């Protein structure tokens, strides 16, 4: 079976050799898939660049360099693990869980979205942060805490207030509490410097935090009347209103685990942000 010239030319002399190659290739593949999850840095490219250098040093017979590379390879792999976005997030974001409380208001999301859309009609920018079970208080700059039931009249009054800052966010919990307005993320200098320049800073920080926390952030562009939604470390831009509302409802439903909106949605176990 193994008596094939091609395998001999490749120095593969037995099925055990094939198993070893598959095992090493699987490790390479798993590691590169994990590295690919880092949206900020092209770690896969660095990894394969370094691997190519290691191969070339051996190929062109540079034994000192080649041996050094191989000896240092565990440290190099550790370095990749350390600079990976997920690891950095774990170091920076120390999340606490909120004890699930009773649902204050079953149609809080409808009230919130309606208020946001009314505000958008008045050419106001509206951004909203919906907190899940992961506490975000330590990650946010909040001028005050309201912690009150979401009500249409209250939201209307707050959004029409001159104190309302359109560049900041409305902070609500997925149990129907309005926690605060005019909140923004605490900046992470070490992260912000390394971010891609193609997206805004609020999007960058939101991507970073939502990758670790079960929060969802959305912003409505008043002129285009489209939603930018960020959850689970993913950004969906320019969504039409109906699609965005369904998505937010579906996400909140999944996170609260209660059938508030559409019973058919509850059958979906997969995240709406799954790609």
């Amino acid at each position, binding site marked *: 079976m193994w*008596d094939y010239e091609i395998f*001999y*030319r*490749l*120095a593969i*002399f037995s099925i055990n*050799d094939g198993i*070893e*190659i*598959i095992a*090493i*290739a*699987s*490790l*390479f*593949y798993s590691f*590169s*898939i994990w590295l*690919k999850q880092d949206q900020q840095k092209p770690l*896969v490219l660095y990894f*394969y660049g370094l*691997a190519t250098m*290691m*191969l070339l040093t*051996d190929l062109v017979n540079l034994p000192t360099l080649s041996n050094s590379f*191989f000896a240092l390879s565990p440290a190099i792999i550790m370095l990749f693990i350390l600079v990976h976005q997920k690891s950095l997030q774990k170091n920076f974001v120390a999340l606490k869980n909120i004890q699930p409380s009773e649902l204050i208001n079953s149609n809080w999301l409808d009230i919130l979205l309606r208020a946001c859309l009314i505000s958008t009609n008045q050419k106001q920018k509206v951004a909203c942060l919906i907190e899940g079970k992961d506490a975000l208080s330590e990650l946010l700059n909040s001028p005050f805490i309201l912690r009150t039931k979401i009500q249409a009249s209250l939201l209307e009054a707050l959004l029409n207030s001159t104190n309302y800052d359109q560049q900041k966010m409305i902070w609500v919990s997925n149990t129907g509490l309005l926690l605060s307005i005019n909140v923004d993320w605490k900046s992470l200098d070490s992260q912000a410097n390394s971010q891609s320049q193609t997206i805004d800073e609020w999007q960058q920080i939101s991507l970073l935090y939502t990758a670790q926390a079960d929060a969802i952030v959305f912003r409505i562009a008043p002129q285009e009347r489209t939603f930018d939604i960020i959850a689970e470390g993913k950004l969906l831009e320019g969504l039409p209103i109906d699609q965005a509302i369904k998505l937010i409802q579906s996400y909140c439903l999944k996170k609260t685990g209660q059938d508030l909106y559409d019973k058919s949605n509850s059958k979906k176990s997969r995240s709406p942000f799954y*790609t």
Partner: protein
Amino acid sequence: MINQTQKNHAHRFILKLAAIIFGYFFWLILAQKQAVTITKNIPLIFYLAADEYQIEAPEKVAVTLQGLRHQLQKLNFDQLGVQIDATKLKNLGDYTIQILPEQIIIPNHVKLVSYTPVVAKVELTKKEATDNP
């Protein structure tokens, strides 16, 4: 969305391909100094045979060789063979000849571990006349 999915599939395919290529080369670097044993069938060749005789013997001898992986990789199997002096086969009939390790032609850097058969049955027959002049 479809484009994104196709893109993801393409990325994953490229990563799989890269993993296989790099996995193979890294394995080769790590394994090239390993001593490997392989078994290969090599031809049995009779030299200095009389033209009027025909020799019937096993065509191949299975030899087990040991060497470093990179040495075995470069081995040209077409140049290997068991060479037996046919001048001793003078009369028609059956012979039992012992194959000696010295008769097995292999490069110096490769070690001969074993071979089979050790004894070969050889039959010397008269060559049938051909129509061609």
